[in-house]
């Protein structure tokens, strides 16, 4: 029975223009994967309500989910923070237990 491994889940709220940069950081830090969700309505203290404007992508604010070991998460947070200083976004971390599928297992 594959055991559940204690890890950390990092949730990063970021806009589309900075998404590519954030995902590069996540991959470079060695996370085994990421799952990006689309936010439909958002509000924050620094940038208020972000409306869907212009003819760019709809629902521009994304929620990036990354589950990895604490050192990897810490590195990601360190490199993402400077981006959050300049652009709308925020991040939070929580403890989870993840089912680690060995690479060889997939068909």
């Amino acid at each position, binding site marked *: 029975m594959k055991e559940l491994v204690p890890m950390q889940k990092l949730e990063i709220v970021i806009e589309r223009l900075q998404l590519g940069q954030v995902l590069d950081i996540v991959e470079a830090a060695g996370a085994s994967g990421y799952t990006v969700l689309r936010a439909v309505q958002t509000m924050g203290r620094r940038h*208020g309500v972000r*409306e869907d*404007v*212009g*003819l*760019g992508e*709809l629902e521009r604010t994304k929620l990036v989910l990354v589950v990895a070991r604490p050192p990897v998460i810490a590195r990601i947070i360190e490199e993402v923070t400077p981006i959050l200083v*300049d652009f709308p976004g925020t991040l939070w971390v929580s403890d989870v237990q993840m089912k680690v599928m060995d690479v060889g297992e997939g068909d």
Partner: protein
Amino acid sequence: MLALLSENLLTPPILFFLLGFGARLVRSDLEIPREIARILSIYLLMAIGFKGGAGLAKSGWTAQVALSCVLVVVLGVVTTLLAFVILRKVLGLTRLNAATIAAHYGSVSAVTFITGVVFLERIGATYEGFTVALMALLESPAIFVGILLGRERGGQEGPKKAWLSRKVLEEALFNGSIVVLSGGMVIGAVTGVRGMEMVKPFLVDPFQGVLTLFLLDMGLLAATRVLGFRRIPWGLIGFGLAWPPLGAALGLFTGLLLGLSPGGTMLVMIMGASGSYIAVPAALHLGLPRANIAYGITLALAVTFPLNISLGIPLYYWIATLVAG
């Protein structure tokens, strides 16, 4: 004059706008998916651009066109400054909010312009083809002026946050509306009659029907924002109602200076009287990230737009025929 009014009001586009508006007021859950509203905007910009390009190709590049381009940019700057002063001094808004709303009104609502073109074509009035090019030109000046006015003075403008970062420039000059509108124009001009033949059953024939469906959605959006009015100071709503005559007057003056036909003059009046809710908000989103853009969009879309397409269009044309006749 009354004939003109009913000529405009009793048409499917305006009536479907009212249907959408009324539906939301009685809390109908009718909703047009955002993706559909998006492609309808792109279609309308592409079609009016293509038509404008074909017209430009016919009329050619004349002194009048060159002068018009210059004067329209001036119109954009002047209207933005005028709106800023009114909002800042008369209504006492913060510098940031005043600049944001002013930028909306210094630019133009492409759909109001398009509804005006449809009105002119239905009553058989002529208008200069290059007015479409003027509309495209009018998108950017207001954005630059707005950001300039909205940025805090001194200190905080470090190099990285230069008041006009590369991203803001890209958005101001190459946002979706300008790309589709001016791209459509260039391609319309280049491909000429044979090009028009290829796309006529798609871009020309169903144009008024697509506008009708789009205005149904606009009605829903406008009413949704009207229902949210309680969060907007009354002074602002007053501005949204009072601006059209002012903006139209500036447009009339510009039209006369350029010796445009009554139809052409009416379209320039619309440029002055209308506020953008597609291109400008997108640019300000980047240029003034802290600005509360909801105000600008709500006024331009839920106050000024309904006023312009129902009463504005026929009245501006009536005035234009009197003055520029």
